[in-house]
């Protein structure tokens, strides 16, 4: 995997920060570095990792997806509302929800193309619409998932948290697709220079469908995971993820302007955030200063390493 580090100085940065947090944690509490705690943190990474992996793609392509929060809420509500404690429906609903998430992403992409409006605005609007739809479906926590479904969020397979492991597999799959599919490379090209992309005849629509579709898929996966973790879907469950999903992307070395970065960095970015929260809990830092610490980490991570100015 040398290509992982070669084009991604940010990834190195996030690994250094993770090491740093571990050092501080080891000093703060002897329970912090235990394998069990590590597994806990790994498990706690899942939701943020899932949504951020999708977000990475939209950002790589020069866009952004601000509808993720509402889409997560919608999919989690639909999951528990439709399954409604009936184990027989699990498979069909899971498939349906994943398809729906992907479809919503594709609608985002189509709107960006058809209306020629900046994705920030399109997805912001879509976010409001989806929140409305979610509330139309459920004004409060809705339905229930069967006990066994919780296994997705709390279960351990060969000692590893199931959901988190699936998220890692998804991440690796997407990383490989980005690297080995022509369309994957073209995601980077589009993010790098949209006008050049048009002139050389790249299919913008198709690329956007891919990235926003993937983002939608990841949101649906997050929605499923949250429904499993909470046992129920709620209309506001995803609200925080809209902005939160950006941070791991950037921590992982993806440029917000697009064209450079990758999903593996994002995965570590999400892990860093979960680890940081865990450390601050262990150190009894109050929530107020946890926010401060998070902000400082973000600033440190993205501002210490400054890329040489490209022009002059």
């Amino acid at each position, binding site marked *: 995997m040398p290509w992982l580090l070669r084009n991604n100085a940010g990834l190195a940065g996030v690994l250094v920060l993770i090491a740093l947090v571990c050092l501080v944690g080891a000093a703060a*509490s002897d*329970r912090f570095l*235990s394998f*069990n*705690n590590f597994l*806990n943190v790994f*498990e*706690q990474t899942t*939701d943020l990792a899932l949504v951020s992996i999708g977000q990475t793609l939209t950002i790589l392509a020069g866009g952004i997806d601000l509808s993720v929060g509402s889409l997560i809420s919608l999919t989690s509500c639909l999951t528990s509302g439709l399954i409604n404690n009936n184990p027989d429906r699990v498979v069909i609903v899971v498939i349906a929800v994943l398809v729906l998430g992907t479809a919503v992403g594709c609608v985002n992409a189509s709107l960006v193309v058809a209306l020629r409006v900046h994705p920030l605005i399109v997805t912001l609007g879509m976010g409001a619409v989806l929140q409305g739809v979610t*509330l139309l479906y*459920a*004004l*409060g*926590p809705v339905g*229930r998932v069967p006990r066994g479904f*919780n296994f997705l*969020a*709390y279960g351990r397979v060969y000692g590893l948290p199931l959901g988190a492991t699936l998220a890692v597999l998804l991440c690796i799959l997407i990383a490989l697709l980005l690297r080995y599919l022509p369309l994957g490379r073209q995601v980077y090209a589009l993010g790098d220079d949209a006008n050049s992309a048009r002139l050389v005849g790249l299919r913008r629509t198709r690329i956007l469908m891919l990235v926003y579709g993937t983002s939608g898929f990841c949101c649906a996966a997050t929605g499923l995971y*949250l429904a499993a*973790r*909470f*046992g*129920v879907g*709620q*209309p*506001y*469950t995803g609200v*925080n993820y809209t902005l939160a999903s950006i941070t791991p992307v950037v921590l992982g070395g993806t440029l917000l302007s697009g064209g450079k970065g990758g999903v593996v960095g994002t995965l570590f970015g999400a892990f860093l955030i*979960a680890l940081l*929260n*865990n450390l601050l*809990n*262990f150190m*009894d830092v*109050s*929530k107020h200063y*946890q*926010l401060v610490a998070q902000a400082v980490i973000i600033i440190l991570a993205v501002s210490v390493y400054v890329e040489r100015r490209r022009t002059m």
Partner: protein
Amino acid sequence: QYSGAPRTFLFNPALDVCIRDTAKFKKAPPYVIGFANAGLGDSWRVVGLHSLEKAAHDHADVVKKLLITDAGHDDAKQVADIQDLVSRGVDLLIVSANTSQALDPAVTQVTERGIPVVMVDRRVDSDNFVTFVTASDAMMGRLFAQWIVEKLNGKGNVIILGGQAGSSPNENRVKPAMQVFGAYPGIKILDTVYSDWSPVKGKQVMQAMIAKHGHNINAVFAPHGLQVPGAIEAFLEAGWKGNEIPPITSADMNGPMKMAIKYKFPLLDIDYPPAMMGVALDVALKVLAGASVPCVYTINSNIVLTHGDETPSIPHPDMYVEKHVVPDGPDDMLVSGGMGPDYNPSTFKIDFPH
């Protein structure tokens, strides 16, 4: 002020009251107790947290450590917090669940690991905990609604000025209230609007409602106090004389009471005492001592009313607003704190074991 036995206990229609045996949790002190808080952000929760800290301070002899986490009203964070607290080795966990259903699996897991859980203020859906310390949301919602119905003699137009659409603290009071309103065909709900518990938004939406319905508004049902001062101001600024302001409901907040006294409009305030968080620690210690506790530990709410606004269901309030109000306290002051006269939330600091 009411000081009798808990009404919910006395008035409980069930033949038996559920009592939980906690012998299996008996443990010798000192204890490490964890508190997974849903979050802070409004004065009610701040005062509640302080009362918990005070209780820990008072029991420093048996409490070795009180570990507190704050989820910032984020379910995912609270689940993680609970896991982290368990990792850190607590003997008992107090949880104020951000969402009753969502925290259920996490709390259930803790219970299944043999760690006793005491819920406070907001419970989880299942019964997978030892006991729940609370005041009754349903009682508040119903009583608010019943009072409005009786004030209007069963006929009139009501605005529902809610908190956040779909959130459980809102629905837990609005739903029971709607059942009451639903029983009276003469009561018409003009509009249901949401303030997201923001005083600013509360005023904005109320101004729009007044512009739309004018004097057709006969009463305002607000399940919480935060949005009420803005609503009252909206009436005043729309030129309503003080006593024209329709009956309105509120909880815990000083401001509406001050205004009700000044402008002489009907106000029903039912407190939801934050002191329940301190009570939760007392109950937790009982559990760890192996003493039996009731399955639900409901503490009393004060029912506070303006003079002359008694109705058949509230013939005698626990007290009248003049007695409850803190005349020179700020509008957003919590009158139901129970932390003593010298207490000031912004300067409060107490030494407790952590």
